[in-house]
């Protein structure tokens, strides 16, 4: 029985965290270009790894 005394607040806090995270995503404009986000993952940009070669650490 005492379990619910901390289980219920825990559930509420987790839910509230999710809600806060969602608000943050709307405010930071993550829903402004849904189509673009879906397509961008298909772009082949293998560039950045070059750094290692340039520093000659390999």
């Amino acid at each position, binding site marked *: *029985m005492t379990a619910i005394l901390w289980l219920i607040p825990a559930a509420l806090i987790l839910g509230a965290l999710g809600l806060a995270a969602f608000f943050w995503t709307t405010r930071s404009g993550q829903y402004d270009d*849904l189509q*673009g986000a879906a*397509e*961008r993952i298909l*772009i*082949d940009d293998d560039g950045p790894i070059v750094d290692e070669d340039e520093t000659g650490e390999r």
Partner: protein
Amino acid sequence: MAPLDGASQGFDAVAFVRAGEDAKHLDLAVENARCAACIAKIEDGVKRLPGVKSVRLNLSTGRVAVTFEGPDDTAVSIIRTLDQLGYPASPYTPEPGESPRDREEKRLLRALAVAGFASANVMLLSISVWAGEGEMDLATKTLMHWLSGLIALPAVAYAGWPFFESGGKSLKSGGVNMDVPISLAVLLACGLSIYETAMGHGAAYFDAAVMLLFFLLIGRWLDVRLRAKAGQAARDLAALQARVAHRIDADGAVKAVPAGEVKPGDLLLVPPGERVPADAEVIEGEGPVDASLVTGESAPQTLKPGSDAYSGMVNLSAPLTLRAKAASQDSLLAEIARLVEAGEQSRSRYVQYADRAARAYVPAVFAMSGLTLGGWLIFGAAPHDAVMNAIAVLIITCPCAMALVVPAVQVVACGRLYKHGVLVKSGDALERLALIRSVVFDKTGTLTEGRAKLANADQIDAESLEAAARLARASRHPLSRAVVEAAGDGPVADELSETGGGGLSGTVEGRSVRFGSAAFLSVNADGGDAAQEAWLQIGEEAPVRFVFEDALRADAAGTVAGLRDQGLPCELLSGDREGPVAHAAHALGLTTWRSGLKPQEKIAHIERMKADGEAPLMVGDGVNDAPALATAHVSVSLGSGAEISRSAADLVIQGDRLSSILEALRISREAKARVMENFALANIYNIIAVPLAVFGLVTPLVAAICMSASSIVVMLNALRLARS
């Protein structure tokens, strides 16, 4: 509508560069960007230019934001680069701040999130109460209910606000919409739950209240998103406005000024290839202009000193000097934008099924609940029991199912049309489409391909065609372009010169060649349509006739016949000249047609049809059609049409398949049938549940099950539409 070429537009772009703190910003609207490859091409292509720091394409809106360092001229090379990549771009000034529509959409999304959070957590508590029925002691149950209330009440206050606000507004204006019973149900459910919990009776409806809001908000948010896209119409038109004007000052110097600064009386110079910035009168110069933007007419018009030029016309060959008659913002194109807005407002007066149902529903519910209260009191029940039963009636008639009826069907039907290449832009468009009684078509670009095609290529020998093409390749005239299309790319003639309103002359392999109108070559052309033919003369040989026509789309005849089979009279309203319109009408078997109509006349005609109860469907593509599209009972635009007409129309057909209209009509009628069935189902639920509530037989558990079951049945019936 011919897009301006990059060079002339790029020059204007400098005016749109905004200086930031450490970099310059430029915002562009690009066409044709559709996929990942487009993002990569645009962003990499622009980033390679010297000075460019960042490029970001928003694929959903087709806007590119660029920041760069260095001279403002970089803007010109950015636009030129995009043009070469195949993405014509035009600069624009972003609106400061958010539009009210964006704000509403974000507000609904937040409300949706809050309602979702609350309903999940309240359900968690409610299910433990239901599962523990008979075992859980009253104190624990009451604790659970208080906790539910603690979550639900603030959530209802926040997430329910859109409904309370809209319901309150409609009550204040003396009407009733669906939001009134929704608000009432939510408020009553909360009020009763608080009372019951406080009294320790142990029945709470917090879960029903937040769940109802959650489901309804999903529908509401989807609806607002659809509408936000549709409402962009007027804003997109602004991008078409001539943005820079060349003003001739008193000392004779030509100065580039923003079009918005043009005042009546100003002298303006319009070089070839540029748009006329404001309604004006021609003072000097003579030559053809592309007026398709203004009138929808395919053949160029010739302007002479004294004739009127309207904003949006594109000058095709000779420089023109004009005297402005109106400021840019009062000009014709601005006028069209205003007409579109007015048309959209008039259409929003359409009463949706859901609101009509609410009008009948609300008084019935109140009457029923009043009778219950009176009846129990008369038959000697305690006042508390009588009030409880009356409230139970109000809650059990909670319009869950009723409010879901229309959105559920609309979402499914729109999804199915999407697969058929038809985009539905406003939620109630399908309802209106099912009710049409007549169809009105535009001609140029809608029933026809919208550009001149060489019709008698088989009668012209290859040498003549090539000679004509060498002249035509240097010209912007639509007929010249048709010749180039028939002949393909190749070399250009020497000593080329173009006479505005006449034709072209030049030298091909040492021989003088002339190509142009019959008058230009002094040929005696008997019969035929002077605007749709041209003559070619090589040296002193006999002239060769080139005949052009605007060919009908392949499925135009089939679509018109299909509509007529369903008993819908079809009409042709065109801004084009009488000859081509009559020809097209005859080919399609249309008996009613009108030619030479201005946008205002098209609107007047459609208003008249609406007044006569003919509920017209308007199909069009051009800028001149946009106001008529916005005015008609319901409208369809083609995917290749002008941006503004796509924004003004309710439905947009992708791939220009006219036959999709028949498909859309069929699905809209099916959707209407499903809506009616759903209303019937929701009513059956009420017929069963209300008597139980009236006679005081409803326990909270029964109420919860009934309410969910009716919603699920309505959803399943809507889903049937996806399969048939």
